[in-house]
């Protein structure tokens, strides 16, 4: 738990951080005296809503030395390491956190009417992100299996979405290469990204079918083409990395501000954004051939990471071509 937190703070030099952590209790005590508000209240009232506030609240909870709050953080991490139904989030996560904090910090809702609500929304964002992480990992670890009917159906649906006018001649066929799989059976291509990669591709091709076919046509360009499905699987890898490293927090926390609970659909949307933008990036660069993929992908990832470093980061599909 601690290690994970330290990763988030890498940009701050370790030196300054140690000094800060040493003086933190003193600073907090001073501010509490003068403002009559605890740190969480100051953050919830003072920091701008969205990523900045959520991030600071998260940090404050992690650094807390109060046993009840430590225990709360531990409980919430335990709960969110599994996936619980959305209907239980309020009772299991939000209310639990609000009650504990009100109790420990002796905050009276009567005098601080806005606190519970605003603090609850921070908790929703922070912990549904963690839950999303667990769920995404679960999908990733699920290997594609040709014996699984549901997996097979999804694969065939992907074909129909991308190639609505051309029927698939056979389950094992070279036709799969037309949408960018490697051989005549896509099942070996998902590998380390498992069903997550298939779900990502399927969501993109169903939700944005026009765009997906447009991108497919780009990928089939004789000179600047690429292998769409394989590139799509590599983009899943990238989205997964960004989620896991916490770099995607700025986007997702800001999204949670307006959309509440985060769920798998938000991850799919994030993926669609990345794939769509990658396509434009590739087309603009006009690489000589697919051998330049890693180089282009690295540059693309750098530009995305740079955007996530802005506090107001929020990725939105900028569609100009849907249903051409």
């Amino acid at each position, binding site marked *: 738990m601690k290690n994970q937190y330290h990763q988030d703070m890498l940009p701050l030099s370790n030196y300054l951080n140690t000094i800060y952590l040493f003086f933190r209790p003193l600073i907090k005590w001073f501010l509490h005296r003068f403002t009559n508000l605890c740190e969480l209240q100051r953050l919830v009232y003072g920091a701008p809503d969205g990523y900045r506030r959520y991030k600071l609240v998260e940090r404050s909870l992690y650094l807390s030395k109060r046993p009840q709050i430590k225990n709360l953080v531990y409980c919430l991490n335990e709960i969110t390491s599994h996936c619980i139904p959305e209907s239980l989030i309020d009772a299991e996560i939000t209310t639990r956190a609000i009650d504990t904090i009100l109790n420990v910090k002796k905050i009276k809702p009567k005098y601080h009417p806005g606190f519970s609500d605003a603090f609850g929304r921070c908790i929703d964002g922070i912990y549904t992100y963690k839950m999303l992480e667990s769920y995404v990992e679960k999908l990733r670890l699920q290997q594609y299996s040709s014996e699984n009917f549901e997996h097979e159906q999804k694969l065939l649906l992907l074909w129909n979405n991308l190639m609505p006018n051309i029927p698939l001649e056979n389950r094992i066929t070279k036709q799969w290469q037309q949408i960018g799989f490697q051989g005549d059976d896509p099942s070996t291509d998902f590998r380390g990204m498992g069903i997550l990669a298939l779900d990502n591709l399927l969501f993109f091709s169903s939700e944005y079918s026009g765009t997906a076919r447009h991108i497919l046509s780009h990928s089939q360009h004789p000179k600047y083409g*690429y292998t769409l499905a394989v590139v799509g699987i590599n983009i899943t890898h990238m989205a997964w990395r960004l989620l896991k490293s916490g770099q995607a927090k700025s986007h997702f926390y800001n999204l949670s501000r307006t959309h509440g609970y985060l769920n798998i659909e938000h991850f799919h949307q994030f993926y669609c954004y990345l794939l769509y933008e990658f396509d434009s990036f590739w087309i603009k660069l006009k690489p000589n051939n697919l051998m330049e993929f890693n180089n282009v992908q690295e540059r693309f990832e750098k530009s995305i990471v740079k955007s996530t470093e802005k506090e107001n980061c929020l990725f939105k599909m900028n569609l100009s071509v849907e249903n051409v």
Partner: protein
Amino acid sequence: MGLLSLLRKLRSSSERDLRIVLVGLDNSGKTTILRQFANEETPQVTTPTAGFNIKSIQSNNLNLNVWDLGGNSKIRPYWKNYFENTDVLIFVVDSSDRKRMAESTSEFNELLKDEKLQNVPIIVLANKQDLNSSMKASEVAEIIGLVKLKDREWQIQACSAIDGTGLKEAMDWICKCMKK
């Protein structure tokens, strides 16, 4: 001290840069092998290689630059752009994929015909020996026609990229080959 640093200098100047090219069909395990050579963890998280990966590996005083070229049929035509000055070619076969052995063989024969690869030593890795359905290394050598090869040094090595068995032996052969 002076003598020691002098010796060290001599040693480092004798280090050679070698170019190793790693090819084979898609899903044969090239990237996982590359990661094992470089002693990297978590080989489970792989995706199909679009393009190529490259890593520098130090072994037996040799500096090996290993190029892992994607096995996708769409990019196989570009393999030959990377063959110039190759010191050793590694060809990876998925020993469990009997259906595609013919495709492997024909790609292998294409490589043998390439002018830039003339006389380049070849090591064939019969990968995925951890699976029960896998063919033995000797069978693989027989099928792809390795045993008939007379114009260059060659070696067949059974391996399992997932747990790393056989890869040390492969690396030793490569180094021995280069020190001759």
